């Protein structure tokens, strides 16, 4: 902290205007420590200053929503006295620098968000985006990230039950690593991150504090990688001290915190994430409308000689802040000792400061010793809630006109459908095999199918025969063409995935991975994407209960394609039998459920499809869907599959939604999964094979008349496509492939690309 004061705020990432705002808030010049606190708390990462205005347009309420956005995690009432908490976050920039630890600490952070609410973390999902695997650095990133998630998630004892895996050049120097966590709690254990009760103590739990990631998440996630090759060339001085995850500490922390909550020993609890202690103390104080005194000298340190600003902003992992009454200190210490978790009183809740105008403000005071010198004194809410909000300029990219006009639906020549189909098949099993996906004995449908399906059960939960379903979806190819429609379709795809396991969608969380918000085109994409999500969620009556925004995903001045990741949580009311999955028998009728054609003049759109992208075609028009028809289709599929989950006898033998790879992709995946071929009718055009518009399902039935009669009664369109059986997949005169060819290609594609097959 030796730089001259006039440029210090800029070095801390604060603009001149922001510096002025700080002076107004304080009514004086901030000292260096105070400025550093504002620097991290008002960073893009912590304050959402570029996105918050837009996020307000999302629907966030519903009768079953217990906690909406703004808390550590969203929470819904899942029935039977059980609440379910869910949260998604990005750990993109840390993972670009140290893939193993970046991904590992991403998992650690998202778990803390969930058990902070009093929920036991029950499952993790990991949407991942990398550049093409022909590049050795990408292979290094993939292996590092996957082993980081595996290393941390398995060890901490939370199953990883699904995710996403996308390869595209736009991520080559800026991979995306998002992590979602879902947890469950007895409804009455719900706690919020609030400090209250003057005289109460703030106890720091968990690891010692080191110089990990100082200005790390916050500064790094709020500034792009300037070098040509992105992270690879980020200069050494800017490199934050990388955070290292300790799943063993986290495991003990989870058990200790849940036990503290069970025993009613805490008033409020908050995790330490980005911006560390300053964030946790100012947020809890601001929520409670109280002040807090923090003694920096009380914080257990891992390294000698740390300055107060380092202690306050360090992002050392595996730490929590509990607010407790002084009477409970002994009991808290004893419980923490059992779990070998360090517990240290570092702060006290104090009266808010009453100002001359009669209003009061809780002050965060950093002191050297509880009764020692005051090193910093700042209104807690100014740090936590009052960062300036920006309505940054927005502009539709000028290039979009040409991109939309370059529509592969119109002019891309037919290739060899057999070869094209084989090229599209990838089984992500190499990834999810590395994850414990079964712990807690809840996993009815694990990774590798449309959505994961879990029994709603866990240690300490009331008995229930319900299930919860989860899926994460994204489609940057669509969103590059039209972020509004693309995002709406992504929500629909997620809901369709849940339908395949019989679940009705109940809530959405989202992680908005975008480029540099100072580029008007990126702000336009972000704003449009939020509107598209809002439209789809309103149409489907889905509340958005949480999310995360990751900006500045760019390298060498080029932004990533807009990548909103949609996480969906659904509920199955009665789960006593597994849904049918992809495994049709021999001789079943194969039926397309839902509209066969997208639109009158563009029945089988190919813009943004994997097929077109593989051929280097990234243009074209995408269009929205008819919500009324869509909703009856979704309701029909949910009802059909839910009845199987409830143990009813059914003629339905298989179900899969049409998504990446189109109808041909869906058929091939089912063939690969069952080992039984299919004979499908001649389609209208090769485009019908590969068009990806969502809201359609391939289903198989042993009684096609009964099935179609039920669909008719529900007003749902069906098309009889053909019959399962044999050792080939044949689609009219277009596709003829053997089952083994399809299965082995799909099985080996990823490992071959990674060079993992010897």
């Amino acid at each position, binding site marked *: 902290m030796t730089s001259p004061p006039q440029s210090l705020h800029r070095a801390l990432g604060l603009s001149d205007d922001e510096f002025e705002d700080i002076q107004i808030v304080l009514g004086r010049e901030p000292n260096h420590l105070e400025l550093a606190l504002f620097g991290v708390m008002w960073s893009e990462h912590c304050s959402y200053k570029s996105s918050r205005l837009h996020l307000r347009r999302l629907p966030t309420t519903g009768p079953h929503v217990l906690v909406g956005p703004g808390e550590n995690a969203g929470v819904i009432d899942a029935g039977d006295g059980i609440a379910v908490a869910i949260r998604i976050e990005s750990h993109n920039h840390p993972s670009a620098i140290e893939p193993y630890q970046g991904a590992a600490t991403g998992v650690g952070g998202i778990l803390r968000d969930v058990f902070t609410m009093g929920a036991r973390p029950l499952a993790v999902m990991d949407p991942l985006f990398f550049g093409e695997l022909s590049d050795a650095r990408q292979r290094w990133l993939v292996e590092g990230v996957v082993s980081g998630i595996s290393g941390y998630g398995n060890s901490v004892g939370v199953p990883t039950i699904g995710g996403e895996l996308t390869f595209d050049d736009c991520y080559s120097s800026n991979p995306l690593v998002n992590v979602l966590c879902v947890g469950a709690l007895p409804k009455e254990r719900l706690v919020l991150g609030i400090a209250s009760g003057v005289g109460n103590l703030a106890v720091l739990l968990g690891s010692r504090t080191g*110089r990990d990631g100082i200005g790390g998440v916050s500064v790094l996630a709020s500034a792009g990688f300037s070098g040509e090759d992105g992270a690879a060339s980020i200069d050494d001085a800017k490199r934050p001290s990388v955070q290292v995850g300790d799943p063993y500490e986290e495991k003990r922390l989870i058990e200790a915190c849940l036990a503290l909550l069970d025993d009613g020993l805490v008033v409020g609890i908050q995790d330490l994430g980005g911006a560390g202690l300053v964030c946790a103390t100012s947020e809890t104080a601001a929520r409670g409308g109280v002040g807090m005194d923090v003694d920096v000298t009380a914080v257990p340190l891992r390294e000698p000689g740390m300055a107060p600003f380092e202690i306050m902003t360090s992002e050392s992992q595996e730490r929590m802040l509990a607010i407790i009454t002084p009477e409970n200190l002994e009991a808290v210490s004893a419980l923490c000792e059992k779990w070998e978790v360090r517990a240290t009183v570092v702060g006290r809740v104090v009266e808010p400061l009453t100002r001359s105008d009669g209003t009061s403000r809780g002050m965060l005071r950093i002191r050297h010793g509880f009764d020692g010198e005051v090193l910093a004194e700042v209104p807690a809410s100014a740090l936590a809630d009052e960062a300036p909000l920006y309505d940054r300029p927005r502009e539709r990219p000028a290039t979009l006109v040409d991109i939309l006009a370059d529509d592969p639906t119109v002019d891309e020549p037919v290739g060899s459908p057999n070869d094209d189909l084989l090229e599209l098949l990838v089984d992500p099993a190499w990834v999810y095999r590395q994850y414990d996906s079964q712990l807690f004995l809840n996993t009815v449908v694990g990774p590798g199918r449309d959505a994961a399906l879990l029994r709603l059960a866990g240690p300490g939960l009331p008995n229930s025969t319900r299930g919860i379903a989860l899926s994460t979806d994204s489609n940057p190819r669509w969103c590059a063409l039209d972020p509004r429609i693309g995002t709406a379709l992504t929500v629909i795809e997620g809901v369709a995935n849940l339908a395949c396991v019989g679940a009705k969608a109940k809530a959405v969380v989202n992680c908005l991975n975008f480029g540099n918000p100072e580029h008007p085109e990126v702000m336009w994409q972000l704003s449009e994407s939020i509107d598209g999500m809002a439209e789809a969620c309103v149409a489907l009556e889905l509340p958005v209960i949480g999310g995360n925004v990751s900006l500045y995903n760019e390298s060498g001045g080029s932004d990533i394609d807009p990548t909103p990741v949609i996480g969906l949580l659904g509920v199955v009311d009665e789960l006593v039998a597994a849904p049918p999955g992809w495994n049709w028998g021999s001789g079943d009728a194969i039926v397309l459920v839902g509209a066969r054609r997208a639109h009158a003049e563009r029945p089988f759109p190919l813009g943004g499809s994997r097929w077109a992208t593989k051929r280097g075609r990234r243009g074209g028009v995408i269009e929205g869907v008819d919500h009324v028809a869509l909703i009856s289709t979704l309701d029909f599929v949910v009802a059909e599959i839910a009845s199987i989950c409830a143990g009813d006898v059914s003629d339905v033998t298989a179900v899969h939604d049409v998504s990446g790879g189109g109808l041909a992709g869906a058929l091939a995946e089912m063939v690969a999964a069952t080992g039984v071929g299919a004979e499908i009718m001649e389609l209208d055009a090769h485009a019908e094979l590969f068009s990806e518009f969502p809201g359609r399902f391939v289903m198989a039935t042993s009684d096609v008349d009964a099935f179609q009669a039920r669909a008719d009664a529900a007003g749902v369109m069906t098309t009889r496509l053909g019959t399962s059986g044999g050792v080939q997949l044949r689609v009219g005169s277009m596709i003829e492939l053997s089952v083994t060819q399809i299965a082995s290609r799909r099985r080996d594609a990823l490992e071959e690309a990674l060079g993992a097959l010897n």
Partner: protein
Amino acid sequence: MNYFVIVDVTLRQGIADPEGATIERALPALGFSGVSNVKAGKSFRMSIDAASEEEALEKATALAERLLSNPVIEDAAARLGETVTP
């Protein structure tokens, strides 16, 4: 010539070492006192064909930095070992 080279990979100063810390915490209960600052590291032993010791070490250093460690969190150093057969 064939040289026996050892590459030591250690965590950089300031980087958390949960493994070392966990081992250290366990020691008193096992009857070991007076042991502190435990750090866990990795090592790689190999035979390298080279014209001179210097060249062998150079090769090993390049290998250490490119493949055996991530310089963001680890330091790597190559040294000559005593025998050719590890």
